[in-house]
């Protein structure tokens, strides 16, 4: 298996194997257990209060930084992995206790509403000043009371310059004739419906029936050009199966790091109809056993030097002053993989959908795939 399997790339299907176990283990615990307000606002000093249990995407943090943290503070650090936000939520809902989690922005919104995140006092973080001020009051977490931003990402199209002709900088490149049958779409219903919404000139998060009807037609047309749906962009591109791949910006860094020859033939573009951008966070669940150690670890990651090491390793920009150079090196030849706070401000972000809106999107996805 490739050594650099990244967030969401690791098969979401693997999670399915856990469904049975989760059902069993939780008994009837899949129902809602909202934490109390008091559990959320307790004051936690940033000092070691035990070993650390991190819950993160696979291969989404430089393991060297974990090792150096453990050594510096003399604690043990363990890491558990999830492969999708719903699977992370399922584990949290069933009462598992993690000290530090990495939710995406739209899920932060939900976690805050459910009182599942501890309030973070930024004054206790010595490196808090390095966080971009853009994140002082983000849409998903008023006043940044519960979260510290981790990484920024964007969705676009990766392609092989030595195989494909006529790339136009549009989502229409997913129906490029010269690559017909060698095109993959992300196997992620949000990303798939999102790009089709943008291509039709709708809002990224459009859920009204008229828009979704058109978006469904777009997806059905795109399907005739596809070889498959997959989130394994890097292996698909490296194995020659994909010439064009709907992908995240970090995927390209990943592909190039692994390409044995001619890494420069792999290119990435963001599309003119609109660019889905996103960010994720570090946060401490309200039932964390060792929130003090977790705070120290967050502070550790905010150190510009540590952030730089992390960026070089995982390929995504972090909103931390002093870490820009590390990402600039990665993006030297590919400005398209850059994500700035302006992109976050101007680009489209996936919003949290209400259950019936989610259902409408899922319906479109099923109709396209069935």
């Amino acid at each position, binding site marked *: 298996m490739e050594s650099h399997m990244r967030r969401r790339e690791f098969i979401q299907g*693997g999670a*399915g194997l856990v469904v049975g176990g989760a059902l069993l283990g939780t008994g009837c615990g899949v129902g809602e257990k909202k934490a109390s307000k008091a559990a959320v606002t307790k004051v936690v000093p940033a000092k070691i209060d035990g070993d650390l249990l991190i819950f993160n995407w696979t291969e989404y943090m430089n393991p060297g930084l974990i090792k150096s943290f453990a050594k510096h503070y003399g604690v043990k650090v363990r890491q558990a992995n999830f492969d999708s936000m719903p699977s992370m939520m399922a584990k949290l809902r069933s009462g598992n206790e993690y000290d530090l989690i990495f939710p995406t922005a739209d899920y932060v919104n939900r976690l805050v509403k459910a009182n599942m995140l501890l309030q973070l006092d930024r004054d206790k973080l010595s490196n808090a000043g390095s966080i971009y001020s853009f994140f002082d009051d983000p849409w998903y977490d008023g006043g940044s009371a519960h979260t510290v931003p981790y990484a920024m990402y964007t969705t676009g199209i990766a392609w092989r310059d030595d195989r494909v002709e006529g790339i136009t900088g549009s989502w229409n490149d997913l129906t490029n004739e010269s690559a017909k049958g060698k095109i993959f779409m992300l196997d992620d219903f949000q990303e798939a419906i999102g790009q089709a919404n943008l291509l039709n000139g709708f809002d990224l998060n459009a859920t009204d029936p008229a828009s979704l009807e058109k978006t469904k037609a777009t997806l059905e047309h795109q399907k005739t050009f596809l070889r498959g749906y997959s989130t394994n962009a890097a292996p698909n591109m490296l194995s020659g199966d994909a010439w064009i791949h709907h992908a995240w910006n970090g995927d390209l860094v990943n592909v190039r790091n692994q390409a044995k020859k001619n890494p420069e033939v792999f290119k990435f573009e963001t599309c003119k109809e609109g660019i889905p951008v996103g960010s994720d966070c570090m946060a401490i669940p309200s039932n964390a056993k060792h929130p003090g150690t977790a705070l120290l670890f967050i502070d550790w990651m905010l150190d510009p030097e540590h952030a730089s090491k992390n960026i070089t390793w995982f390929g995504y920009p972090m909103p931390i002053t002093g870490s820009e150079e590390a990402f600039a090196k990665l993006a030297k030849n590919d400005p398209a993989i850059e994500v700035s706070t302006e992109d976050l401000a101007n680009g489209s972000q996936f919003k949290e959908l209400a259950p019936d809106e989610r259902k409408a999107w899922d319906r479109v996805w099923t109709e396209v*795939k069935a």
Partner: protein
Amino acid sequence: VTGAFWRRFLVPGALWLVLFFAVPFGITIAISLGSPTELGGVLYGFEPANYADALDPLFAPVLLRSVTYAAATAAICLLVGYPVAYCIARYGGRYKNALIAAVLLPFLTNYLVRTYAWVALLADEGLVNRLAGERIGFLNTPWAVIGGLVYGYLGYMILPIYAALERMDPALIEAGKDLYGSPRQTFWHVTWPQTLPGVLAGIVLVFLPAVGDFISAQLLGGPDTYMIGNLIQQQFYGADNWPFGSALTVVLMAFLMVFMVFYLRGSEARREALG
């Protein structure tokens, strides 16, 4: 020794069934009657609408596709597995156990990991295509999905057939030959009927998990290989709709139960016929 003594040995098996089947299935039914919350959790209640949704004709082609793939898988497994079981049972000699162990060996590795290996092997610039010297467009087709299923479940076909062949008295074959049966006639009139229970058990053991499989279609499949397992998985880990996913699961199980009933009644009838 009384019957009561022997009945005690039923306890572990029964406990196992209750703990790992009855209880989870009860939870699944309870969830299937709930509704999803904003957090992606489950609000328990009585919401039969999930079942009305699950019976939507939209899913008919997905179910039909799953059944077709699973039937093809069972058929290929039988064609491949029977000769293998036959050779091991009849000609394995003192290597029998080693050969059966070899059949089981791949199961020590996770099915998911083994399927990933196929993705790498069959890729356009992968080992198989390089050895073939030309691009065989195998990956991301229905055939790749069925191939993955055959690979994943072949063992479940070989073992019961092997067991049936082992149980069979070899003298019966001798008797068939003594009565001037050609090898082919002896096989069809003696060996095949004797091993039919094993064959049917193998078909059930392969068919049932293959219908609900989602890994093969997700990793080896193309745009038109969506199976019922993928649909259910999407409800759990994409759409955050556990109640609907559970309702689909229950409907699928009810559907598969029909196959089981036919199988059980068939084997019961055979047992009675054999006296």
